[in-house]
């Protein structure tokens, strides 16, 4: 299944215009660094999972990085964000320390939640990261509620929430879309459409082909974009944020992307062929961004240096996390109720 982002879709009726180059080489180079960091952190986590050091459900975002990097550049650092169990990339893009992130996934004392939350519950209020969620769809009303809070307090802050295309038919999504549109809340609904819901392609369970068209039913501004092109994502989210801050209400963005790794560590991946995955590698976010940088005259040497730096940083972070002590068992009994 090729990435189905036709020009006519990008210039769709929705009030969003995607132009060519809008980011400076400096910005793009910085994005490259962050994207490569996310990629390497996720790959390292997969290795740790394969070696049995990570239990439970560990979902990586390898192939999804475009949405996170574009978002971080487009929003204010204090804008609210919620996301799914597949949320490492959003958190790292917003500046979460890889050391504490990896330590949390390993269940260590230096994890941001002392090992209580783990891979599915990334959060850092200081960075506007208001929580990843293990329940499909559950984080979406949270973001709408944060947008409501901002609206009531007149903060000018907006909220963005990320979810997969498979989440569309969880009832709470529908309830939240309607209320958010009716109350014209400053919230952005970003669907990372990677074409699979666990092991099931969306086409098997959805009555609509183009997810973004569905949001139009609520009268919501809605577009479909190439989620693997950070420049496209950046523009779509920037414009949606502008509308939201101007009181024009929510925007639904369907970012077409592809999950290059399994749904979670240990996924047998019997539901797709190696050829399908290979074909997608030609247009994955890191490839798209690298090509863009080289086209714009950035030297491969510059990128190579960045990769070397990042490798070192990630290796250090993994070591830090592995050497981090286990939490004191007493920690298991704290934080049940807030004071």
């Amino acid at each position, binding site marked *: 299944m090729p990435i189905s982002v036709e020009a006519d879709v990008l210039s769709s009726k929705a009030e969003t215009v995607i132009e060519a180059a809008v980011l400076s080489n400096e910005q793009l180079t910085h994005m490259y660094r962050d994207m490569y960091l996310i990629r390497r952190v996720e790959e390292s986590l997969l290795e740790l999972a394969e070696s049995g050091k990570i239990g439970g459900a560990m979902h990586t975002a390898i192939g999804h990085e475009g949405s996170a990097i574009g978002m971080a550049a487009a929003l204010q650092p204090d804008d609210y964000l919620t996301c799914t169990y597949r949320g490492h990339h959003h958190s790292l893009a917003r500046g979460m320390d890889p050391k504490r992130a990896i330590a949390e996934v390993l269940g260590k004392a230096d994890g941001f939640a002392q090992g209580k939350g783990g891979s599915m519950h990334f959060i850092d209020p200081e960075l506007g990261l208001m929580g990843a969620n293990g329940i499909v769809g559950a984080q979406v009303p949270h973001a709408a*509620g944060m947008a409501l809070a901002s609206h009531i307090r007149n903060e000018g802050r907006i909220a963005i929430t990320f979810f997969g295309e498979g989440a569309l038919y969880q*009832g709470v999504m529908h309830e939240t879309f309607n209320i958010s549109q009716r109350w014209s809340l400053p919230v952005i609904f970003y669907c990372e459409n990677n074409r699979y819901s666990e092991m099931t392609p969306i086409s098997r369970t959805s009555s609509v082909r183009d997810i973004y068209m569905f949001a139009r039913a609520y009268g919501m501004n809605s577009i479909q974009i190439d989620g693997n092109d950070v420049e496209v994502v950046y523009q779509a989210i920037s414009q949606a944020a502008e509308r939201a801050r101007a009181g024009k209400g929510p925007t639904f963005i369907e970012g077409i992307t592809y999950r290059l790794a399994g749904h979670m560590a240990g996924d047998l991946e019997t539901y797709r062929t190696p050829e399908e995955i290979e074909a997608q590698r030609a247009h994955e976010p890191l490839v798209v961004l690298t090509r863009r940088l080289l086209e714009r005259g950035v030297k491969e040497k510059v990128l190579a240096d960045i990769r070397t730096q990042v490798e070192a940083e990630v290796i250090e972070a993994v070591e830090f996390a592995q050497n981090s002590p286990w939490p004191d068992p007493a920690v298991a009994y704290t*934080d049940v109720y807030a004071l």
Partner: protein
Amino acid sequence: MRTTTYIQAINEAIREEMRRDENVFLMGEDVGRYGGLFRVTRNLFEEFGEERVRDTPISEQGFMGMATGAALVGMRPIVELMYMDFFMVCADQIFNQAAKMHYMTGGLVNVPLVIRGQHGGGKRYGSQHSQCVESTFAQFPGIKVVAPCTPYDAKGLLVSAIRDNNPVAFIEHKMLYFTRGELPDVGEETIVPIGKADVKREGKDLTLVSFSYTLLEALAAAEELKDEYGIDIEVVDLRSIVPLDTETLYASVQKTGRLLAVHESQSNCGIGGEIVARIYEEAPHLLQAPARRLGMAPVSLPVSQKLEEEVLPWKKNIKAAVLEMLEPVAA
């Protein structure tokens, strides 16, 4: 002092807290312009306007989740569930989300959220509009649960619930709405701490512990048992289900040596059985006879008046349970 209805007490608590703290706001079905199906939120829309008093669509999971999100960033939402039975269409947002956020994040965030609404039988609403919910809410750590019986406790506990930094289920009972009781004059702050039980009637023969509407049935039963059999019942009003004030409870049982827990939610895995298990865990020596519990019969509430009376753990059934426990004594 003055007397007001239970409804009025709740309405006052919300109004006063909304005046005191602009982060407090209200959401729910028909809570705004109409003032709530049971008129509990009347006149709040007029005073605070549509920004802070929001009529929602019939989307409980959605607006409960939105309230949780707003609470995560410092608002103090009060969400009305028109009937507490409807927690079942938003159970995930209550138990899996609001209740767990603080713990799952190692304390990085709080969810100061109040979920309020009425539950219970006695008015022929049938299976889907009458079940008592406190025992279900009590199964999920992270959410506090209160179920006041008097207007005073209702106002005082609601103020505490709104100021609490955790999700609190504030459970009203449809049979209590028009009951009246004393309340300090307007202006005087009324606060009842969460987690403190209250002895509503002194006695020496048996400790009858209850809360919400069944507490009134327990008190009525106690009076009749006194008149008819000279039995002297102590009635403890739990008021809070989570956390449980076992201290006050055990102090009473120390006097009476006998314990009967009465509640309208199901007996099976209910708060009554929990209280029995706790005392055998923590203070079995206080008991001179086996502790007992009386809950709703193991059926979902039927509509017919005659059938409803039969299965509810009300006066008639409470008296029978007490007499059974005191047979040795009474005899």
